[in-house]
């Protein structure tokens, strides 16, 4: 877990998520017998085309996917990373994903391969490759007996296989091996899980199979060191997106100098995400192309220079150790100086202070839209005032774990009502229910509101606990303004509301017609009789750690609301006492997508999730 404050219930999948997109239809119109390469005009036979296909469409789609996703990166990084993985931008991509593999050189244990685990992420072939290869194949290779399938169809079938299946298919016959090789060459995205005790040669051999890799995700269960980084640098010349996630027990041994060299050498690198960066010590990153940078588990950095003028999004998470000697203020000053195009900033550090905020506000980042400064208990209302005066157009503001109070909320509501759509104030001990209510009343565009652990007893506050606090805690002290609180929220746009851990909440009235997700985990004192949910589009209610009566009350409210609505048909009573019932909409005007319309009429069931 990266973040100290727990997840807001389920981030929504990004709009750009595409899943499996079919092979581009361009090849369909191609006539047979075109023996020249579409790109450079040379005869195709035995020809390897070096002219680059423009994949700018893919890249911009990725950029939009990142920006829609980054609005939820305040939520746990792993969930947003996986959401980003699901965003398949365009037809030009092709993804292979490895989840399980053992050492290629030594003997492979049979338990090491688990083909059933892997999801099929093939998204479509790179356009030119498919063109060249398929025409070539259709002309030359129609021999069915030895290969079982004609070549073009073989391509389609093998393309859908997970990587282990592809490796197996390469052993079936020569023809299949050819097809598998072509698929490897066409691969642009690779997701690998590197098990423990594996030689770097394994990764090297994988990367050599697919030289056209543009996106690389590694889930390291063995240590990640400079040899592996060098291997990646050597094999993947077109790398644009790199993500390294570390599982428990694996160490990231990269130091700052190595990282700096890697970033400087990779001219096309646009996005770099790395976990476990505790050995960096200090770095100088110079890159003209880098636009997204996520580093987590940072600790005691001596020098941080971000010489990346195209940087749009930065996420720096510092480990929560007390003896962190990083000078955040200088770092932020440097950031502001060199990366003037920043749009999304996320910094999670215990030592965030008012001085750091002032450095940020002095930086004049004109494009700043999402600001997240979490865990800094020294951030006060004065900091909020500074932020509000310098950046009045924020769309996301996350000050979880800070010391702001209701007057800070007042400042926020004064300045940001026209733009702010996401406000996260979890673990802010000085925020009360009136502040929350004020915020929901004054911010008309609000879609996400996270007030976890705000209205609760200060004794039960434990800033180092992660996830949901289901541990039974005794509420010993009785601060009257923190118990028996009531919340009345009526908001037309609110989609997600999180009140997890608000044990001081006694009554809740929600009238939000667009609310999809409600998190009431550990709302221990919420009285079942004082709960009223009028949210017809509610899909998920999280209620773990709540009393059974409350869960029952939630369920009955949520399900009854739907049945009540089903029986309603618009009717009109005429003056003579008769009643005309309008026949509901039955005929569709067009045939194409009638099933979608039909499903809209059906009510979505709401899940009450109790773990």
């Amino acid at each position: 877990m990266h973040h100290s404050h727990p997840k807001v219930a389920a981030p929504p999948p990004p709009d750009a998520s595409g899943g499996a997109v079919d092979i581009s239809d361009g090849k369909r119109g191609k006539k047979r017998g075109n023996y020249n390469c579409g790109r450079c005009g040379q005869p195709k036979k035995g020809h390897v085309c070096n002219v680059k296909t423009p994949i700018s469409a893919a890249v911009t789609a990725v950029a939009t996917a990142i920006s829609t996703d980054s609005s939820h990166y305040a939520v746990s990084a792993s969930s947003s990373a996986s959401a980003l993985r699901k965003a398949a931008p365009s037809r030009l991509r092709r993804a292979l994903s490895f989840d399980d593999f053992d050492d290629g050189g030594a003997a492979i244990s049979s338990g090491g391969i688990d083909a059933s685990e892997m999801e099929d992420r093939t998204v479509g072939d790179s356009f030119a490759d498919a063109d060249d290869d398929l025409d070539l194949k259709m002309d030359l290779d129609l021999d069915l007996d030895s290969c079982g399938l004609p070549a073009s169809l073989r391509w389609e079938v093998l393309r859908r296989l997970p990587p282990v299946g592809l490796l197996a298919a390469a052993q079936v016959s020569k023809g299949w091996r050819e097809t598998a090789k072509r698929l490897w060459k066409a691969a642009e995205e690779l997701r690998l899980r590197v098990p423990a005790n594996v030689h770097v040669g394994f990764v090297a051999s994988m990367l050599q199979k697919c030289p056209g890799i543009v996106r690389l995700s590694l889930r390291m269960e063995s240590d990640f060191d400079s040899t592996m980084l060098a291997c990646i640098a050597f094999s993947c010349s077109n790398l644009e997106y790199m993500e390294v996630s570390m599982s428990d027990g694996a160490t990231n041994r990269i130091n700052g100098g190595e990282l700096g060299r890697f970033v400087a050498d990779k001219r096309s690198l646009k996005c770099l995400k790395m976990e476990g960066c505790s050995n960096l010590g200090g770095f100088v990153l110079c890159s003209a192309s880098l636009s997204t940078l996520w580093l987590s588990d940072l600790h005691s950095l001596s020098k941080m220079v971000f010489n990346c003028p195209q940087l749009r999004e930065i996420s720096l998470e510092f480990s929560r150790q007390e003896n962190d000697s990083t000078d955040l203020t200088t770092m932020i000053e440097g950031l502001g100086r060199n990366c003037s195009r920043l749009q999304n900033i996320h910094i999670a550090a215990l030592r965030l202070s008012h001085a750091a905020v002032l450095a940020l506000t002095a930086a004049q980042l004109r494009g700043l839209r999402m600001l997240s400064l979490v865990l800094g208990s020294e951030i006060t209302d004065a900091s909020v005032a500074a932020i509000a005066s310098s950046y009045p157009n924020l769309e996301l503001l996350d000050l979880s774990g800070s010391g702001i109070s209701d007057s800070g909320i007042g400042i926020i509501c004064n300045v940001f009502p026209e733009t702010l759509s996401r406000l996260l104030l979890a673990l802010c001990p000085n925020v009360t229910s009136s502040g929350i209510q004020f915020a929901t009343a004054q911010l008309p565009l609000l879609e996400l509101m996270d007030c976890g652990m705000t209205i609760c007893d200060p004794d039960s506050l434990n800033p180092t606990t992660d996830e949901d606090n289901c541990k039974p805690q005794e509420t010993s002290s009785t601060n009257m303004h923190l118990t028996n609180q009531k919340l009345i929220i009526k908001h037309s746009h609110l989609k997600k509301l999180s009140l997890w851990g608000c044990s001081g909440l006694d009554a809740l009235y929600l009238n939000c017609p667009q609310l999809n997700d409600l998190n009431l985990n550990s709302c221990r004192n919420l009285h079942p009789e004082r709960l009223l949910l009028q949210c017809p589009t509610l899909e998920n209610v999280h209620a773990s750690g709540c009393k059974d009566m409350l869960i029952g009350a939630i369920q009955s409210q949520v399900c009854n609301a739907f049945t009540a609505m089903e029986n309603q048909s618009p009717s009109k009573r005429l003056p003579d006492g008769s009643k005309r019932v309008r026949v509901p909409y039955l005929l569709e005007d067009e045939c194409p997508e009638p099933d979608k319309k039909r499903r809209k009429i059906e009510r979505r069931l709401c899940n009450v999730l109790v773990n």
Partner: protein
Amino acid sequence: MELLCIRQWISGLLPTVKKWLSAWCIKPVGGALVRQEPEYILLALMGSPLKKIMLCSSEKEIFSVEEQVMVQHSVIINNMIEDGSYNHEESKIPLDCVDSKTLKKVIDYCTHHTHHHNDNQEDLEAWDAQFLNVDSNGLYDLLMAANYLEIRNLLDLIYGTIKNMIKGKKIDEIRRIFNIKDHGFTPEEEEQNRKEYPHFY
């Protein structure tokens, strides 16, 4: 009037007539509401059958199918009809690479999917699974036919089925399923393959 013009005239009328029909054709019948496809009602009123096309298999057997059904699924047939090269009165579309048995199945698939597109996903998937419950020769023929006629969703379905037949199986079994008698590797190569990936065999 030429047939083509009549067709356009009818389809032009459709929206207005639909609204007219909806007022009195849909009546509660014993508590349940009966839903009719407007095109069927309209054409039933007009007295002419639904436009049909003729498909001719390799065995010279002729199948009559609603044009709507095939046009929705098969890109090839759609193109042919839109080009205007198909004359409804006289021509039939020859499909020399598709035999009668397979053609019948393909038509069955297209018809079911057109008429049942409103069903929920599980029912459709169950039907599809049942539909593909054929031996590998039959599956192969279906694949060739779908490829020729360019029926995208049937192709995807068949590819998915074949992929599942390969996934997780040992190499020898895959060779048996696909009837690959000669794998093309020299004995030394085969030996090396077995050494490199022993668990695949």
